[in-house]
């Protein structure tokens, strides 16, 4: 399992190579990219912030859950931090599995849980100012 916070641009090949395995016929991946708009406003740039210790702990919990539910072989998750431009990669997740169906299901689970639970915050920059993006709110168990 590879979990990494990247102050520099994400190298998705690193994640893909990290999960490659001779027993796996599928490598599936998700790439989150900075969009040029949000709720009708033009986005110029985006900042990602994380709470590092909790990020590693919670992400590992999510990926352990994924491993326990699907027969995946390996997973790599790379999170970018700092200031990103439109088109930059903010998140990359790769999962390898013997067959594609379990890989796709496992990846979908990991993304959804990550979006709701990982202590990651982003602030969008517009021509008129900046704003923290509010999307999700933690695990149900803690509410």
């Amino acid at each position: 399992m590879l979990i990494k916070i990247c102050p520099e641009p994400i190298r998705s090949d690193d994640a893909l190579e990290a999960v490659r395995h001779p027993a796996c016929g599928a490598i599936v991946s998700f790439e989150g990219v900075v969009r040029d708009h949000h709720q009708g406003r033009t986005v110029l740039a985006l900042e990602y912030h994380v709470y590092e210790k909790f990020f590693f702990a919670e992400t590992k919990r999510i990926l352990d859950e994924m491993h326990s539910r699907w027969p995946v072989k390996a997973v790599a998750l790379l999170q970018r931090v700092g200031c990103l431009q439109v088109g930059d990669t903010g998140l990359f997740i790769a999962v390898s599995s013997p067959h594609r169906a379990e890989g796709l299901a496992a990846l979908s689970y990991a993304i959804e849980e990550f979006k709701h639970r990982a202590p990651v915050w982003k602030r969008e920059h517009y021509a008129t100012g900046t704003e923290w993006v509010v999307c999700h709110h933690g695990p149900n168990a803690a509410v």
Partner: protein
Amino acid sequence: MKVTVLFFAMLQEKLKRSEMSVEVSEGGESLQQLTARVMASCGVEATEVGHCLFAVNWEYVPSHHIVRPGDEVALIPPVAGG
């Protein structure tokens, strides 16, 4: 005996600080009580953090969780990963 309380993102900006060291008794204190004290000391209404979740020692916990000396407490505003 103290705990460290961490603030992030919009909350960090509102409070103009990223962390505080707060005295707690050896028997501990609930997160609700601790947060009310912390917000009062910052001159902020506790309702301002009503949308936050809590993490203690890098794990989500409910608001009735008892904080012990030495714990790392974090107020977690709505996250936006992905």
